[in-house]
């Protein structure tokens, strides 16, 4: 099952998008806890696009949701300033200062986070969650 969302980089788009993705993740067989965690990872990645890639200015964001029998993959694209979240150093936890946890959430929740360096127009980030523990261990795509 695939679905494409074309969005404007505004914070008010996050909640309605979560509502649609929550339904799709449920249809993909994810139970409530995992669904909410995956939503959180997507949300954090989109918040980074809004804040860092576009600096709070409106721009285009695309969310490609791709659910298969072995994994769920979410691809996020934007045309903003280059921002590679995989290069953000891990925070020291517990963090006593506000902020700096978004990328930690993404890394903790998703099995694979891949930043596409070949994507020239802006940023493309792949968030992957495997449905079986075996595949997680193999780190297969």
């Amino acid at each position, binding site marked *: 099952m695939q679905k494409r969302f074309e969005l404007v980089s505004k914070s*008010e788009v996050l909640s309605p998008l979560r509502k649609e993705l929550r339904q799709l993740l449920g249809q993909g067989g994810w139970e409530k806890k995992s669904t909410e965690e995956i939503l959180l990872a997507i949300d954090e990645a989109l*918040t980074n696009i809004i804040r860092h890639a576009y600096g709070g200015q409106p721009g285009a964001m695309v969310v490609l949701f791709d659910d298969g029998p072995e994994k769920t993959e979410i691809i996020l694209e934007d045309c903003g300033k280059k921002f590679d979240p995989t290069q953000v150093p891990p925070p020291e936890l517990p963090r006593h*200062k506000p902020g700096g946890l978004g990328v930690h959430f993404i890394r903790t929740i998703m099995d694979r986070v891949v930043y596409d360096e070949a994507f020239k127009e802006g940023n493309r980030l792949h968030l992957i969650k495997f449905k079986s523990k075996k595949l997680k261990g193999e780190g297969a795509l």
Partner: protein
Amino acid sequence: MKIQMTCQGDIHILELVGELDYHSSPELREKLNELSAKQAPKILVNLKGVDYMDSSGIATFVEAFQKTKRYQGRLILAELTDTVRGVFEIAKLESIFEISPTVDEAFTRLGAKA
């Protein structure tokens, strides 16, 4: 997100309903800033109605916690839903905050009765 602010004795209570994310957290930050600016001694945040929270929500509470700590105030978070508790756990912040399972217990901790 709906934020209802009430007062019981010297305890300021914020009851939140809805989703706490990058869009809604500035409103909560503003309310908490108002309270810390006037050095409210005891702040109780009831999270029973919050079914979603992201790192912006966490950051808002970390900031409020630091501000209240500076003037020896107290901030207690009560009635976390499973989803919200999970976010605190991923951030490894459960031990930093004062967290109460119920509002009644939070009131008791703060030296009042609900």
